[in-house]
C-alpha cells in the first residue's frame, strides 16, 4: 500500500516537476511568475490528441505505434515551444522595463485568453485521448505499475537530467545562468539577452508539452481548464523547492506528488487538491525561500 502510493506519487510528481521547471526557469531569468504556463501545458495535451489523431488517420499509427507516438511528442513540443516563444514576444517583452506587476497581470490575461481560445476552438467538453497504448502492468512485491507509469517516471527523470547537463555544461546554459544573475553584465559579455529569454521560454514550454501529453495519456481525458489547477500545483512545487532553483523545482515536484498521493490514501482523498495549497501556505509561513532557494532580498 505505501509503496504503491509512492509509485503513484512519483508519477504525478514527475509531471509537476516538469511543469514547475518552466515556472522556475522563467522566474530565474525575468523574475516573472508566468501564470500562462499552465495553459501551455494544457495546449500540449490537446496537441497530443490532435497529432496522434492525424497520424492515426494517415495510417502511421497502425504501421508503427512507436514512431507515431514519438512524432506526436516531437510535434507537440515544437508547436508548444512556438506558443511559449510567441507569448513572450507579444505579452512580456514589450513590458520588460515596466513595473513588475504589469507583466504579471499580462500573464494572467494570456492565461485567460488561451483557456478561452482552446474552449472556443476545441469545445468545452472533455476530449478523450485515443486508447492506442497497450497497457501492460508489472507486478513487483505487492505493487502494480502500469507501463505508462514507468514511462512517465523514467521520461521525466531523463528530461530533468538532460536539462541539468544543458544548464551546467553548455555555452547557452552558462549564458542562461549569467543572465539570471546579472542581465546587464551578461549583455556586456556579448550575450544576446533577448535570445536567451526566448530559449528559456522555448525550453520551459517544451517541457510543459511533454508533461501535458503524458498526463493526457495517463488520465485519458483532456479539458480546456486542466491548465489552471496543474499550473497552480506546479507553481506550488516550484515555490516548495525554492523558486528560481532548477534542482529545487525537480525536488519540489516529486515531494508535492508524494504528499498528494500519500495524503489522499492515508488522510482523505476528498481533499487531494487541497494538500498542495496547504503545503504552499505552510512554506510561505515557515520557509518562504523554499527548500533550496537562497534568500537574496530584492534584486536591484
Amino acid at each position, binding site marked *: 500500500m505505501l509503496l504503491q502510493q509512492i509509485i503513484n506519487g512519483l508519477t504525478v510528481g514527475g509531471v509537476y516537476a516538469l511543469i514547475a521547471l518552466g515556472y522556475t526557469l522563467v522566474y530565474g531569468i525575468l523574475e516573472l511568475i508566468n501564470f500562462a504556463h499552465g495553459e501551455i501545458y494544457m495546449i500540449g495535451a490537446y496537441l497530443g490528441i490532435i497529432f496522434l489523431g492525424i497520424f492515426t488517420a494517415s495510417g502511421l499509427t497502425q504501421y508503427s505505434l512507436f514512431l507515431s507516438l514519438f512524432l506526436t511528442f516531437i510535434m507537440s513540443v515544437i508547436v508548444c515551444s512556438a506558443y511559449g516563444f510567441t507569448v513572450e514576444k507579444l505579452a512580456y517583452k514589450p513590458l520588460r522595463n515596466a513595473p513588475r506587476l504589469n507583466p504579471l497581470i499580462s500573464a494572467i490575461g494570456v492565461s485567460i485568453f488561451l483557456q478561452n481560445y482552446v474552449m472556443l476552438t476545441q469545445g468545452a467538453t472533455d476530449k478523450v485521448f485515443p486508447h492506442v497504448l497497450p497497457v501492460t502492468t508489472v507486478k513487483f512485491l505487492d505493487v502494480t505499475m502500469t507501463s505508462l507509469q514507468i514511462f512517465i517516471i523514467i521520461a521525466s527523470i531523463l528530461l530533468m537530467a538532460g536539462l541539468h547537463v*544543458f544548464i551546467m*555544461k*553548455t*555555452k*547557452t*546554459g*552558462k*549564458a542562461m*545562468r*549569467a543572465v539570471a*544573475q*546579472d542581465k*546587464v*553584465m*551578461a*549583455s*556586456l*559579455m*556579448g*550575450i*544576446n*539577452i533577448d535570445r536567451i529569454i526566448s*530559449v528559456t521560454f522555448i525550453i520551459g514550454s517544451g517541457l510543459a508539452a511533454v508533461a501535458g501529453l503524458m498526463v493526457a495519456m495517463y488520465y485519458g481525458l483532456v479539458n480546456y481548464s486542466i491548465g489552471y489547477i496543474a499550473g497552480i500545483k506546479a507553481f506550488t512545487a516550484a515555490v516548495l523547492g525554492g523558486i528560481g532553483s532548477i534542482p529545487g523545482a525537480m525536488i519540489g515536484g516529486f515531494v508535492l506528488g508524494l504528499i498528494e498521493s500519500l495524503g489522499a490514501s492515508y488522510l482523505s482523498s476528498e481533499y487531494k487538491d487541497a494538500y498542495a495549497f496547504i503545503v504552499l501556505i505552510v512554506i510561505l509561513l515557515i520557509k518562504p525561500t523554499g527548500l533550496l532557494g537562497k534568500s537574496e532580498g530584492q534584486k536591484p
Partner: protein
Amino acid sequence: MILEVRALTKVFGGLKAVEEVSFRVKQGVVLSIIGPNGAGKTTLFNCLTGMLTPTKGKVLFEEKDITRSKAHEITAMGIARSFQNIRVFGSMSVLENAMIGQHCRSGKGLLAAVMGTRGFVKEEDDIKARALEYLEFTGIAGYAGTLAENLPYGDQKRLEIARALASEPKLLLLDEPAAGMNPQESLALMELIRKIREWGKTVVIIEHDMKVVMGISDRIVVLDHGVKIAEGTPDEIRNNPQVIEAYLGKEEVF
C-alpha cells in the same frame, strides 16, 4: 583611431550628465578619464558600451558608427568593460566566469550543443583552455574552481579584468579598477595594465587614484560637470591651471 567620440551629449531629464564631449583614442595607448564625482565619467562609459543611448553625438569604433548598437553587439565588435562596483557572476566558478567572457567568440550553436557533436566538445575544451590563459595572465588561475563570490576583493577585481579580456577586446574600458585597493594591490594593478598595453590592447580607464593615473596614462581627459575641460599628457594635465582649479582645488595632490 580605435575610438572616436564626437560631441557626445547625454541628458537625463533636465540634467546634462555629459555635454558635447569629444576625444579620440589612438590604437595601443592608455587613456585615463578623470574628474570629480558626478563629472559624467561612468555615464560616458555607459554610452560607449551601449548601456545608454546618447542624446546627441556619435561614437565611432574603428571608424564604424556604434552609437545605437546594442551592448552585446558592441562586445562582439571588440569593446569590453569592467565596473566600478564588482559585478562578477558570484554563484559561478572563477573559470566559468572567464568562459562566459569567451561567449561571443565561440561559434557553435545550440544544435551542436544538444547533439554533443565532436566540434562542440572540442570547442568547449578550447574555450576552457583560453579562459585559463586569461586567468593565468591576471594571476588568479589558482582559483579556477572557486566560486567567484568567495574570492578576496582584489582578486574579484582581477577576475573582472580577466573576464573582460576573455571576450578578446581591442579596447578595454576599466571603471575605477583601483578603487578600494591597498597600495600593493594598486601597484600590481598598474603592472597588469602595462602588460595589457604591451599586448597591443587599447585601454581607457576611469580612475581617482592619481598615482595610478599618472603612472600608466599616455593621455588624460579631464571632465567636470559633464564638460571636457582639458586633455593632454600627464605632464600637461599636471600643470594645467584650469584642471588644478576646477578639479583638484590644490596643487599638492599631484
